[in-house]
């Protein structure tokens, strides 16, 4: 396997994690027009929860399930306390509120767990290399889990009644309400799905990149959000595609930019975002709205 394929694979691996987070952003945004900056921090919450549960119970499966459950509780509490009272406020107001929630979560965990980097160690099985390159069993796990989750969530959205209600609310929440859809129920469901995906993404990310700290979620969250916007926020497939694209671009920028420009990796990611928004204001796969102000 040559260098290009290797970096493409590690890009896809990072991209899968971005995709999982971006889908959560996208689902919530589709219904509430809310950019939930605290979404990235849920990933950090999940990592800490899993870390503690692994240390306590020695069981990986239990730790993953427990961390997903804890993250869902966090997501729901945030929705109930901070976002629901602001349901009718302007989108900038909710945006700043989510920033405040993000700062709150980061500092809460910083207070409890101190700001130092911790190591998230999984059994040796996961770090075994395949084919003598930097692709490990963990990468396979990431691809498989991401694939399954994306399939499951897209089935839920496309085939179930709840999914139909979600799509109706995303289309026009006022009209959906009049049709007897319980908006609060749909929002809660969106937060449950989003938080669960963020939790899985958190465990996968920390399993792969080992080191974590209370402020890890923010930058990943912002990048995943950029991914969702590039793909067309509000569109499910767009978020997944945007995530993969951004992950690949980020790794390729780091590997292939000329000497000295590699350090601009993150800046280039956002340059891509700005260019995509200029050329296609609704993202690559997004649908044009009448008036998205």
């Amino acid at each position: 396997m040559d260098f290009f394929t290797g970096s493409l694979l590690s890009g896809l691996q990072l991209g899968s994690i971005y995709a999982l987070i971006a889908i959560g952003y996208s689902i919530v945004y589709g219904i509430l027009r809310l950019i939930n900056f605290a979404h990235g921090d849920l990933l950090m919450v999940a990592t800490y929860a899993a870390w503690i549960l692994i240390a306590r119970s020695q069981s990986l499966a239990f730790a993953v399930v427990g961390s997903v459950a804890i993250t869902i509780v966090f997501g729901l509490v945030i929705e109930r306390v901070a976002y629901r009272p602001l349901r009718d406020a302007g989108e900038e107001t909710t945006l700043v509120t989510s920033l405040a929630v993000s700062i709150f979560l980061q500092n809460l965990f910083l207070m409890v767990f101190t700001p130092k980097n911790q190591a998230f160690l999984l059994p040796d099985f996961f770090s075994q290399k395949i084919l003598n390159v930097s692709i490990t069993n963990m990468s396979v796990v990431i691809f498989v889990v991401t694939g399954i989750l994306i399939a499951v969530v897209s089935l839920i959205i496309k085939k179930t009644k709840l999914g139909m209600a979600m799509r109706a609310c995303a289309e026009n929440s006022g009209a959906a309400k009049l049709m007897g859809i319980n908006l609060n129920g749909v929002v809660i469901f969106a937060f449950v799905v989003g938080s669960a995906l963020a939790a899985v993404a958190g465990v996968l990310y920390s399993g792969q990149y080992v080191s974590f700290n209370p402020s890890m979620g923010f930058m990943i969250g912002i990048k995943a959000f950029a991914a969702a916007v590039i793909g067309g926020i509000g569109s499910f497939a767009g978020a997944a595609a945007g995530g993969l694209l951004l992950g690949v671009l980020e790794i390729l920028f780091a590997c292939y930019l000329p000497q000295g420009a590699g350090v601009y990796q993150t800046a280039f990611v956002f340059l891509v975002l700005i260019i995509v928004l200029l050329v296609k204001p609704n993202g690559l796969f997004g649908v044009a709205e009448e008036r998205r102000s």
Partner: protein
Amino acid sequence: MAKRLFANPLFKFLVTVAAPLIALFCIYFKVAEYYQIVVILFMINVILTASLNITNGFIGIFSMGQAGFMAIGAYAGSLLTMSADLKISRIPGIPEWLANVQLPFIPALIIAGMVAAAAAVIFGFPVLRAKGHYLAVMTLGMIIIIKAILDNNSNLTNGAKGISGMERFSTLPVVFAVMIVSLFFLYRMTKSAFGRSMAAIRSDADAASSLGINATKYRMIAFVVSAFFGAVGGALWAHLQQTIAPSLFYFSRTFSIIEMSVLGGMSTLSGAFPGAAIVTFVPQILANFENGFKIFGFDVPALNGLSAIVMSIVFILVIIKWRGGVTRGSEYIVNAMFGKDTWTGILRKQTYIDFWNILCGGFKNSIHYHPHTIEEKEQEKKNEQEKNEQ
């Protein structure tokens, strides 16, 4: 009474001009330097907040990039005021032409603002074409790009290590003067035809365009003006802290400016005062508790991040309670400071007579209305009951 009192020019003068001036005099001459720095920081924050309010509140461009302009101002200002020897020793590889430039503080401030304004024009072309959320995220991208540039051009900025050793030019009188001039400029701007056009664009850009307002151009002007004053704030900040690094002008800085702006009320200039006051002073008080303290014999361990936690909770509560910030859309403070009727009013005799009457009226009323204390009321009830029983 309260309404008439608040409308009285003499009252306005006393509360928004005379009292703060006296307070500043006392602080300047009597208070220890550490506390003076906090007050200077507050005034710099007022400039930053007011400049952000021009875009976020007045014209409806929700920018999250103010820290980026602040960084540009801080670096440009510092590079212009430092002496050649200092620059060569602190920044290895600085180009010779730049090392030899040294300006007095105020011209350096203005040029720093102009550099940021130029950057705002460059960023404005792509960024201002987006709307709402998209624009906000693009401005976030902007501060990431600015930080990457500052981090990696070490022959200009000394990279991630930053620059230190600027002289402390940002003394209390200087910062106060700059704040007043900046606020006055912004106040006149919002009261002009331009200000009314901004309000029109905020409420409906399409309708404003149909009335012949060039929304794109006005957005750009507002963005550039905001960047200019953001950079002035940044340069003042650099010459107060005397050390700058790219990581100081990143997300947390931008959020604290947004926090001030939203807490005080985005769509007012007056909001800059309460907003900056809360965000500057409350963490200073809470910082005492962060290192751990004793209460009732219990040792409370160090609480890192306490002030950020408290501030974010306060922030969410204020947003939920008052969408328009604590000023709730009122421009009272700035109007009272700069308004024509304050300054012409204090020259009229009638103002003083009115003021006196309002105060006396207030006292008279308070004599007529004598609030009973609870014990007195209970005593009266008992007396009545006894009478009835008899």
